[in-house]
């Protein structure tokens, strides 16, 4: 991992641990509550397909990784409401926009991928 990325990840981890509300992507996302986002991510069963670490998984087909997703918030919200694949649609009545924003903040706070070359058993 690049030093800068590591520092950002660490900062996010600290913010997450403290339950501090941040703008997940200040330039394009509403403010989200990471702690509430984690609660929703687990209780609404997002983790069942996308993994507790946001590493992705599989349902009928691959479920993409969401940890530190590059998807802008609008796309994330759109995917939640009108998914492009077999992901179930979450209507606003069960997951208001603010809840989606909290989940977005949470997944943005998760560590992204590391450098695989730094992990010995992934070299072969």
């Amino acid at each position, binding site marked *: 991992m690049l030093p800068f990325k590591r520092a950002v990840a660490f900062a996010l981890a600290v913010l997450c641990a403290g339950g501090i509300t941040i703008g997940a992507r200040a330039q394009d996302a509403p403010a989200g509550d990471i702690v509430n986002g984690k609660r929703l991510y687990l*209780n*609404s*069963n997002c*983790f*069942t*397909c996308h*993994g*507790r*670490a*946001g*590493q*992705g*998984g*599989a*349902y*009928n087909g691959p*479920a993409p*990784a969401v*940890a530190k997703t590059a998807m802008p918030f609008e796309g994330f919200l759109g995917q939640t409401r009108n998914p492009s*694949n*077999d*992901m*179930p*649609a*979450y*209507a606003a*009545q*069960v997951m208001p926009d603010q809840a989606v924003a909290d989940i977005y903040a949470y997944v943005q706070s998760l*560590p*992204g*991928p*590391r*450098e*695989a070359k730094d*992990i010995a*058993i*992934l070299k*072969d």
Partner: protein
Amino acid sequence: MAQGYAKMEGKPLAMMCHGTVGLQHASMALYNAWCDRVPVYVMIGNIIEGDKRAPGVEWVHSAIDPAAIVRDFVKWDDQPASLQHFAESAVRAYKIAMTPPMAPVLLSLDAELQENPIIDPESLRIPKLANVVPPVGDAGALGDAAKMLVTAENPVIICDRLARSPAGISRLVELAETLQCAVVDNAGRMNFPSRHPLNQSFRRSVISQADVILAIEMNDVFGSLNAFSDRITRASRPTVKKGAKIVTLGLRDTYMKSNYQDFGRYQDVDLAIAGDGEASLALLIETVKRLIDPSRKSIYETRGKKLAAAHQAMVEQTKSDATLGWDASPITTARMCAEVYAQIKDEDWSMVGTSIRLSWPHRLWNFDKPYRWNGVSGGAGVGYNLPASLGAALANKQHGRLTVSFGGDGDFVFAPGTLWTAAHHRIPMLYIVQNNRAYHQEYMYLTAMAARRSRGIENAHIGTTLTDPNIDFATVARGFGVHGEGPVTDPTDLAPALKRAIAAVKSGQPALVDVVTDPR
């Protein structure tokens, strides 16, 4: 067990059970084997004559037609009425089971016939067995297919249950290398090396770019060439390019039954060749080589280099993906598979089972030999993985291979007594329980249904999770006399646990490692 054994050893294992209750127990295993096109030789007992049955259990264990409950998913069955009839049916059953497309067969054997003295032994004889030579596709049709392949810009080969023997793998490699074309392996068998540069199994976009698709020994061609939406309104759309030519080669069209719908949706194709895939490849390769215009070789080389580069990029991306949640607890399935591979990669390993949609081994490991893999259940009936893995381990034992298998916790609880068989018969096997503490496919499905109805999402765990109490699989294993490790919750504890378990396996014992994992 018989299904796993046959796929590894290339010949059926005999299986005996009660004709009524035993066969009812065995019926789902037979369904798996039938869907998986695996030969299993089943013998059941029956007492045909009512006046010969003892009062009580022999009546409830007798039937007029005991094979009726499985006739939809065995290839052939008989209830011989004499010893000579038995001899002929016994040989015929073996021959039918071993003729591709292979499938289970069943003989219902009358107790009187089994136990009464032989009155006239000199009159009996065992017929000669001549196995059927698998049919090769029509030469003209294979020639037409070869013409399409050599002139295509982006030919793609898709396969599923292709390789019956090592020859199947080497022939597929030869065909792909001759054409320098992409191969998408659905992994119904060990068909194609996972690290071959032309392996594009995890880059299915190649299918949508193909102008010629050769589908070999595919059960569900439609499923591979179409996208399907599991939504309120279920819909599908082709993922192949308009005008792409589709050629099928295999014996699927020659063997069909009506009731159970394992044949999948009907797929439009341009050329359907009836012939055993493995046997037909030799002639197809020869024809392709004869038809290749030398001036096109540079085009092939360029195509192959592009595919190799894409394969390498895919490998790098896979490794990067595997690092997500690397230190997490519960342990990610990627970390679990990487840790297992680190311990076995220098052994003569054979992976014989996997939990639902666990693709990390095929994405990360080097599957380079015929016995590295033997496919999945076929019928997706729960309770397959543990006994089928032990059957494959029994086959591997005589070859000195290190058998490794992953199985889900939900699947495990359907046939845990398999562990006693493993311990009793000293069948070495490393069994990893991917313990996500749920029937997880159902957990996800209920979540999807609840979200669809906008209610009860938080209740999807009811009836789908295996918690309260958590199952301690290592203790269960020890209770059956099997070396048990775990539950392992910290990823740093995994390597030491695996080392201990593998040491037990190498000493000739079965061993189980309970790994508490994230869902998928």
